């Protein structure tokens, strides 16, 4: 009896996971999350990053080391 219940629960859980994943796949929810939430946030991060300015490097430092 217990085994039967366990099997039913496992099958139910697997079916729920399958249905959930299929919904993500079919409605392109992975793409929507990445394009509408993750990417705009990350772009802001990249735009704000401090980057090396090659024009501010003194001439005598060139060819000496990684700047």
């Amino acid at each position, binding site marked *: 009896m217990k085994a039967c219940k366990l099997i039913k629960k496992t099958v139910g859980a697997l079916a729920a996971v399958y249905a959930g994943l299929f919904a993500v796949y*079919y409605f392109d929810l992975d*793409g929507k999350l990445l394009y509408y939430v993750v990417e705009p946030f990350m772009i802001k991060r990249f735009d704000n990053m401090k980057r090396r300015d090659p024009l501010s490097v003194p001439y005598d430092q060139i060819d000496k080391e990684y700047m």
Partner: protein
Amino acid sequence: MVISTELLGIRNSIAENMENKAKKSGKVKYPNPKFFRAKDNMDWKKQGENLLEVGKICVDIFKDSDQKAFWKKQLDRTIDDLKRVKLEIKQGIEMTPEERKDVFLNGEKTLGKLYRKGDMATVRREWKGLADTAYDFWEWCRMWGMLIGTFGKDLVPALNTTFHYRWMISYMCCVGFMDKNTFGQKGTALKMSHLMIYDVFRYVAENLVFLAKCDEKNGNSKELNKKVVLFDEMTMGQIMAGFPDLLGIPYQLMPVFLVSEIDQLTCIPYIDAVESFGLPADTCPVPSSECGALVIDALPHMGSCFISSSMPCDGSVMASEYMSRRFPNLPVYHLTFPVRYEYEETTADAVEDIKGCIKFVEEITGAKWSWDAYFKQMKRFNEETNYELQKWEVNKTDYPQILGPCYELFRKWNYEMDGGADPRVIPTFKKTTELMMKAYERREEAWVGKMKYRGIVWSCPAHYYANFSNWLANCWGVDILVEMESLNFTKMLETEDKEEALMDLARLYERMVMRRHTNGGYHNVVNELWKQVEDWRADIIIMYQNVACKNMSTLQGILDDQAREKNYHMIWIEHDLMDPRTVSRKNMRQKVNEYMTTVMKATPVDPTLVDFDDEICM
């Protein structure tokens, strides 16, 4: 921390034992698992500062963003989605039971409705029919599983890299790129496309982890950096076959070139950066992007040395010069093969260049060239070339089978980057060939009911950016049988005589992707085109015109005149590779639309794809 280090040590020693056993039995894993296990030397303080900054940006975004506008946009999208669902239900009700059954089993017929103006993502994924949608879903799961599993091999540097480089974020959208490349494909064609693109993505994911591990700003693995030989993305990887203990990485491939094919908008900041420094805007966007990425520090600082080349054109020379100035401590070897490659007397010069390169790598890394390893890989590469030739034979018949961007990308990657290095690719070739032959016997169609014209692609191709060959098939029934960049060196490489093997390697390098045709003169690109059109019995030539390619622009009038004399349908499509601001994808499609309606008097097989907005799509 101590416990985790202990556990890592136990895991590594178990893995090493297993590898030694596998090595004895002749089963060697690829890529070398030791590369993944090389110790990282992260600057935790800097990474902490990075994370803090990311946190601050999160808070700023939340504070600065117009919450009302954001939720209104989401609401509008949801309302639009519901309207679409309603419309699709209505269309379903209006269908006859036979039509409904056909859509359920064989998939939808119109694909333009999956795009929405101003949206990056599709409204939903394509319904390909019951069995094919189930298969596509399985492949979607498999792809995400592979990506998570691969990045999980060294997650922290990979995550740090995602926070550090703009291009990394576009790779997260690679599953959407896979969808685009299989748009409209069903049955065996869909299976073959998934099999091939999976291998390419796996290679990319693994190399992204290596980039993250090596980069001084992220993983900073000194141990791995000693083994890494960087080469220009336009230089073939086969020379690394003789150094099985080293890791060859096409340096700019991941941060610039390949990512631009996934997301055409990625490289724009790099192009702008280098143009703001004075580079003319009519320069080819490939080297421009590479240089721009260096200007704004978007390339990892890594590797023991760099092999640059003059291939396929002077654009690579420009990018290599930027590279060596940006990283002056990185030793560089320039491979400069003779351009007139059909003159056999020049091959000996190229061999000397290869010998010099081998010596350079040996001196820098301390590794020794292994002829056994080289011959082993070249035997595999020859086997792959044999499989490739079988594909060409089938595609030349009236029932071409293996078509579309996945195949085109796979061929290019296999020829140029993999070159027989990865033994896991052979089963893909075998399986694909088996599927192809069965589909050929059944006379299947890659795009069912949509195959009207036989097409060939010529000149610097832009079809990945615009998903062009797939769109051509879905919208107008033009099936691209082969592209110029696939038609390279197919001679079996020497695998016994050492001197002759080097001659063959030189011949192979001289005929690398693009170089074989767009360099070396009129004969290689003009006469060769007419020969290929005859061989493949093409009805239409899709002639891409990279507005920045000076080599090809010199031949435009000649190609035009001769095509007219020979009575070929040649459609010129202007583009600017990874810069869609010069020529948009919509404008590229419009050139075909005009030709098909005015000259060919054709009607589209899917009218919903004739005109749609994808200006900000990938």
